[in-house]
């Protein structure tokens, strides 16, 4: 039974569509300077407007996630005639795909008609790899001040997300027999997709030997298990389904979006107290189920998956949590070639992901999902009708988005 039956009118299924996407070029960390982060954001939105056949005068809402967006300055610079909805999903990168769900919610509830979701990033001095190091220390520009909760983690030497997710990866290996070769397959297959695209920062193939020769960062994760550190911006414009039909591009309908998580997933890697049942997971099981119910589909209906890939093991755990394979089978699932484009049963990160195209905190995944459904992707999945994009693994909220033609 589809949720539109069970929840009557109270669903946003298919009531909105993505009408435009745009981005700046993607840069290695710091190389976008002297442009300012909000300047990058504006360039991405102007590109998205152009893609949609809209102008800044049409924009009346901003549905955002994570930190660093200066809404007032942005509106003032671009002379947005009237903002009617400005909202930010709580949390960090976990809100990426869910920000489009927030835009859809604004439109379905009648608060705004044309809502932009934007991420802009400039990691010149603010390197996320030291996110949980003591603020003020050399190298710890972007980091949290000491907190009573952090006191129970930081003295261990865990100071960055990669070190912390390595702990989940280690547990996954112990519980399920996952191997480093499986992490390597995520890195290598994603790189193979990236090198076919001129937007990608990584342009050379990655071999298994190179993977195993790379330096260890935090065991079991080596250099190639980590995503890139980048600058750039991506914007996505959502409108009502009816309006989308009159615009320049083929509408890409929002079938579902969910954000949140189980309460005791909680702060996740910054408390390490998650129940054993889902410690070695992506934290996505609840939002996966909700999105599938809203869209009235299952994993078998998804043609292409754009899975947030800050660290390779977390792609494997999302494949499990989204039902592409049983829990614990993700490593063997990728080893069997299932995520390869174009031959795999579920091509993953056809754009090259955070790992090899660019890390713009997950918004490149939404852009790729749109291009796959339009049929214009560089690495097009033939006949793709349903695309999944995700935000996080992260602390609550994690989020997702299901798009269809």
């Amino acid at each position, binding site marked *: 039974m589809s949720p539109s039956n069970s929840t009557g009118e109270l669903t946003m299924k298919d009531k909105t569509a993505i009408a435009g996407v745009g981005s700046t070029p993607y840069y290695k960390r710091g190389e976008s300077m002297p442009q300012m982060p909000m300047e990058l954001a504006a360039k991405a939105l102007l590109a998205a407007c152009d893609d949609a056949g809209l102008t800044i005068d049409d924009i009346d809402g901003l549905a955002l996630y994570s930190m660093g967006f200066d809404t007032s300055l942005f509106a003032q610079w671009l002379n947005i005639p009237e903002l009617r909805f400005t909202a930010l999903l709580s949390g960090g990168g976990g809100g990426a795909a869910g920000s489009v769900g927030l835009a859809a919610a604004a439109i379905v509830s009648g608060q705004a008609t044309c809502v932009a979701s934007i991420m802009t990033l400039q990691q010149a001095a603010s390197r996320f790899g030291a996110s949980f190091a003591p603020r003020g220390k050399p190298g710890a520009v972007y980091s949290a001040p000491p907190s009573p909760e952090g006191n129970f983690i930081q003295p261990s*030497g865990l100071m960055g997300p990669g070190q912390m997710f390595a702990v989940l990866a280690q547990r996954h290996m112990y519980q399920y027999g996952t191997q480093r070769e499986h992490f390597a397959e995520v890195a290598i297959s994603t790189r193979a997709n990236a090198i076919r695209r001129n937007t990608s920062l990584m342009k050379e193939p990655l071999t298994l030997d190179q993977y195993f020769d790379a330096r260890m960062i935090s065991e079991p994760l080596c250099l190639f298990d980590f995503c890139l550190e980048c600058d750039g911006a991506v914007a996505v414009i959502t409108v009502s389904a009816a309006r989308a039909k009159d615009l320049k591009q083929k509408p890409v309908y929002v079938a579902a979006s969910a954000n949140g998580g189980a309460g005791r997933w909680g702060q996740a890697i910054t408390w390490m107290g998650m129940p054993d049942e889902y410690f070695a997971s992506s934290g996505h099981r609840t939002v996966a189920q909700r999105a599938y119910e809203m869209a009235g589909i299952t994993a078998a209906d998804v043609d292409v998956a754009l899975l947030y890939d800050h660290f390779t093991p977390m792609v494997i755990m999302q494949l499990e949590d989204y039902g592409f394979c049983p829990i614990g089978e993700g490593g063997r699932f990728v080893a069997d070639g299932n995520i390869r484009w174009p031959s795999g049963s579920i091509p993953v990160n056809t754009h090259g992901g955070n790992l090899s195209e660019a890390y713009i905190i997950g918004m490149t995944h939404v852009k790729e999902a749109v291009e796959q459904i339009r049929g214009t992707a560089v690495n097009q999945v033939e006949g793709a009708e349903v695309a999944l994009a995700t935000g996080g693994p992260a602390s609550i909220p994690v989020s997702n988005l299901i798009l269809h033609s």
Partner: protein
Amino acid sequence: MKGLTPESVINLTPNVWTEPFWAAAAEHRLVVPRCTSCGTHRMPPTPFCWRCRHQDVEWEEHDGRGTLYSFTVVRHAVIPDVRDALPLIAGIVELPNTEGCRLVGNIVDCEPEAVRIGLGVTTDWYDVREGETVPVFRLA
């Protein structure tokens, strides 16, 4: 002890809920808060019992014997302060009979190759500075 996170990056900032833990730690005693209503342990100490949402706790002594739940060997310094201390082993230790309470700290005086999930550990204490002591672990 070998394998300690440099003291320069440790800065304890207790609040009313965590202070008893750190006060006991300074005396090299491990205590775990336990809900006075339903008996559920919770770590880190928080204002509410996650099971019954009651607030009051009693502080129960624990012998510090636990099981290594997971770990990572930190090989790369994300800030210069830790460079000379590498490799660091960060361990997640589960305490038995506490409904899954975990402590996180350095595994000390140990080669990274010897560490395995499931091994037994004992708790020891790292005196960072006067009045600030944090738990560390040894393979049993």
